[in-house]
């Protein structure tokens, strides 16, 4: 359990110090290796997809020719990133408990897209705003609710009344 606390403390430190600390740099190198592997894999998948589309010939390049070239470049650069994982670690930020907020934020946006046709603009927007103000922004319930209502009203006036965007809605 002490190691868990250690990693927590390390991830909370601002990025510049992280790169000098041995723990942070090991994490950054590992991140670089994973990034390299993901990029290489994406490149290989692109090559496979491109070959299926038909490459054509040099004189008449087919639909798959250009994606093939890109897949090769992506796999090559991805491999370079993975192999040279010890370099350029200063730009790599650590993942940790602080990453939870951004992930929840992204999920809330995707959820908004899914429920918008079902519940309409007013309820979906109110829910998203309250989540961002109260949940992610740590505002008080009072100001979150009043703020959300106000923002929804203003957005309604801009997007529905003024710009006439056909958003699914109750009113």
């Amino acid at each position, binding site marked *: 359990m002490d190691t868990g606390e250690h990693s927590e403390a390390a991830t909370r430190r601002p990025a510049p110090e992280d790169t000098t600390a041995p723990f942070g740099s090991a994490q950054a190198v590992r991140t*670089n290796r994973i*990034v390299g592997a993901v*990029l290489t894999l994406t490149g290989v998948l*692109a090559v496979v*997809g491109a070959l299926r*589309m*038909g490459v054509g*010939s*040099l004189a*008449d*390049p087919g*639909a798959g*020719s*250009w*994606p093939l070239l*890109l*897949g090769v*470049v*992506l796999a090559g*650069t*991805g491999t*370079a*990133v993975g192999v*040279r994982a010890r*370099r350029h*670690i*200063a*730009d*790599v*930020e650590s*993942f940790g408990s602080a*990453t939870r*907020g*951004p992930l929840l*934020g*992204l*999920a809330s*946006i*995707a959820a*908004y*897209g*899914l429920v*918008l*046709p079902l519940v309409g603009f007013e309820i979906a*927007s109110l829910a998203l*705003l309250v989540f*961002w*103000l109260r949940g*992610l*922004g740590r*505002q008080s319930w009072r100001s979150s609710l009043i*703020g*959300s209502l106000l*923002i929804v009203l203003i*957005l309604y006036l801009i*997007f529905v009344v003024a*710009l006439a*965007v*056909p*958003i699914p809605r109750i009113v």
Partner: protein
Amino acid sequence: MNTLDSVLAGFATAVEPANLLFCLIGVTIGMFIGVLPGLGPSATIAILLPVTYSIEPTGAIIMLAGIFYGAIYGGTITSVLLRLPGEASSVVVTFDGYPMAQKGRAGVALTLAAVASFIGGTVSLIFLTVLAPVVARFAVDFGPPEFAVLTLVGIGLVSSVGSSSVPKSLAAAALGLLFATVGRDELTGDARFTFGTLTLIDGFGFVLIAMGVFGIAEIIHNQEAAGTTAARKPIPITQLRPTSSEVRQAVPAVARGGALGFLLGLLPGGGATLSSLVSYAVEKGVARDKSRFGHGAVEGVAGPETANNAAASSSFIPLLTLGLPANPAMAMLFGAFLVVGITPGPNLVDTDPDLFWGVINSMYVGNILLLIMAIPLVGVFVRVLSVNPAYLAAICVMVTVLGVFSLRQSPTDIVFLAFFGALGYLMKKTGISPGPMVLAFILGGILEPAFRQSMRIFAGDPTGFLTRPISGTLLVVAVLGFLGMLGFRMWRKRTGRTPLSAVTDPTAQTPRT
């Protein structure tokens, strides 16, 4: 109609009340987000891209351009008063602007910065006015091979200049080009990477990708960093007027910074941030007493401020005359042009002279507006910092989401927005700059057809790129440039010193008080 008539007609367009208002709105938003650390001009333009659907094209582009160069003015204010650069292009100004403020010269530093910005922006615009039609005339004869080489070189330069990891940036560019291939193949009609569904048959929209990778990712990333920057009290402004000796020090720096900024702004991958860094290095290099730098040297404020605004103006030349965005912010404006149904390129000056000259000339107006606003309204803009970040983030997210929805009335696009937001966030976290990806995505639509058509023209012989005079010259210049950069990197490694490393010295020398 000859060029002079068009230029004058453009001024008439620029000062139309509606366009004047859009210009004012643009530069004010620009100043506002320039002051705010976190939200940059590319993200702001991305978030506001859908607005271009509902207002008249010229006004829309004038406004978005205003956001771009207004942000560079705004970033200076907090750099000087709080040592808190609002924009990347203003980081350099903290080196000497903040020490000047500590010595009670805050007002002087801001005045110098504003005037230097104005001179840099305006002189660069005059060159833009003269050169743009000439470059466009020259480029009218470009065929597919020229455009293929030009866009490829552009993407390559953006990925290599000013990026810390070249493989990462190149991978980002390749990824952007791959995203551009999704959907129906323009030349053969085959469906590509659509996974058998119709959802992706039209491909990804540029606005969607830009809003996700720049807009949402930036908001989300700030969410994580929120609370780390404690509120500080800005240094009060006392005297505004520089002494005559300060003016004497500033004038040559302004001249050098302007020339440097103009040239670097033209270069793909150059732009405001790089030119401010190089200008600072140059000023320190030519100064007799280098020890003054980092302790409030006037040239360290005047030079870079002139350079970044000169670069901001000149980077419009490749965009408006070749249809080649030289940096991510220009890629956003390129996207705005596409949204209003205009493809910027060599013909723009002839087919849409009102738009072309209206946008350019609005920047003269915008620079004057900024000069007028910069000093008297400093207090107002500093107060912007006290805006509650939670509300700002929530409002930005809602505007982005509704903006994306309004484009195609598709709720699925909001889910894709979250996907590209996640991609942009992961890229930021892993040290891959999203700029090359977005730029490559937008240029992919030009590069791929140009490349494949060229190969047909050459009957499958790729040496054709070299034997055609213009594309060959471009390629040779690009290869020489690349080798030069490689040599520069090796030299830097061997000596452990670079002109740019001089830039990082002052922060190390200045004790944090």
